[in-house]
């Protein structure tokens, strides 16, 4: 009987560990993907590859119309940068 309980504990532990390993690998993979994507996205913003949508910043009554460049990365995230009209 005791042997059976011991076996059960070990099986449950191994299954839990395997589950845990799978989750960890998934997290690790997602992190690597995000880090890689981030490099590409920031590079695209740096070289001004993205046109972006018009947006306005008002400072002290002075309206500054520029472009809001959004560079997506990961599954649903994005990097954002505001550039002035001739600020490429």
């Amino acid at each position, binding site marked *: 009987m*005791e042997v059976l309980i011991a076996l059960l504990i070990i099986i449950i532990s191994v299954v839990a560990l395997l589950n845990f390993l799978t989750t960890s690998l998934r997290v690790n993979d997602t*992190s*690597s993907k995000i880090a890689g994507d981030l490099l590409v996205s920031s590079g695209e913003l740096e070289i001004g590859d993205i046109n972006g949508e018009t*947006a306005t910043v008002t400072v002290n009554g002075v309206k500054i119309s520029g472009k*809001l460049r959004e560079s997506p990365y990961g599954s649903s995230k994005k990097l954002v940068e505001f550039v002035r009209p001739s600020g490429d």
Partner: protein
Amino acid sequence: MKRKKGIILGVTLMMFLTIAVLGTTIMAIVMSKARQTNDLEKRTQAYFFARSGVEIAIQYLIDKPSENDSQNKIWILHGNLPAPGGNSDFSISEKTREGEWYSNVRNALEEFRNDEGKGKEVVTAVWQEVEKLNILSLGTASDVTRVVSYMGRYTIPETVFPFALYATGSITAKGASTIIGKIGTPDINNVSGIDDENIIVVEEGMNYEYPEFKESPFDETSPVTINPAVISSDGYYKGITGSITIKTDPTDPDSIMRVRVDNLSTVSSIVIEGTGKVELYVDDLLSPKGVINWDGDPGKLSIYYHHTVTKENEKDVGTIDLSAFKMSGTLFIYGEHDLDLKKTPVITFGTSNDSGFKLNGLMVVDGVYKIYARGGDHGNNVATIIYAPDSTVDFGGNAEFYGGFVVKSFESKGTAVLSRRIESAENPIGIIIDTMSSELWGE
């Protein structure tokens, strides 16, 4: 049997412990990597927030009312970026450049961010040291802050020519005519009809030299006619009617295309395509017509006209009538006149309110002329200048000019208006910000 049970329990516990330690270690490693990635995301976004602050600060300096002087001030712009298509209000704080705001701007700005700028994505400080422009920008994404510095040159073109009118001789404003802006003269006694507060006496005078006049090329070449005119190479063209398209080098902004035409009296428009510049030599500019490079960069077009007036032909060629001409660029008229002419040659902007002459750019008149206007609105902006230091101006009727004059003498009458109020907030002149090659971006 009891001993066997103990061994099983011991082995089971050891295996359980091993699995637990293994699991915890893997979790720690993976969590550390996830944290690093999260940190990298925030650091990257914070960097772009900081760069955005620099962009906003530069554009603010270009667009702001020109009377603001930042020599002893330090401005802090702070706020959050707008959503796409949206608007965001940035606040501005002004500090005097002293104490920590002088000796350690980085620290002072960090303290400011923790205080007034708390929760703001962008906190940017801007200050000037003579012509050096300094920008220090903090970008914050969540709990991560990055800093970006920027250095550039800051020059204000109006210091080149600060007047609405400068004349070495007499300046007279009669009737209801108005001159808005500063007036320069070497002797205050030359000026009449103008408030003293608008007059600046420049005792030593102002010494501007004529730029180099370029004579027409292609003297040995027979002119060709092409209609509709699409010009994509240097050459001598005649009899062109309607619109002209000049195609310049698409990639080299320093390239110059040289085009000579017999006249512009039958031309309706000239459009310049490409990035290169155009030098247009005109044989006959006595009554040019058309809309020339109007939506284009005035720096891309220079028109040269050598105007020869002799005692024999002065009746026919003594007047250059620009009343149907609208151009963006530089118009250079070089006058070669006999000394014993009956009348001084005339350049007329128009004789009625229908006059269509309009200039966006520079007009250089090298020679003795009478510049005449009796109606119409002729200057386009504060950067538009008529440079004719040997000529006189007779400005009357309802004539208006938005720009500046450098002439020998100036007389306005009727309800004529000359306006070049460069210190006004409503007429700001663009400043030039050039990046310094040695220190463009830094962290």
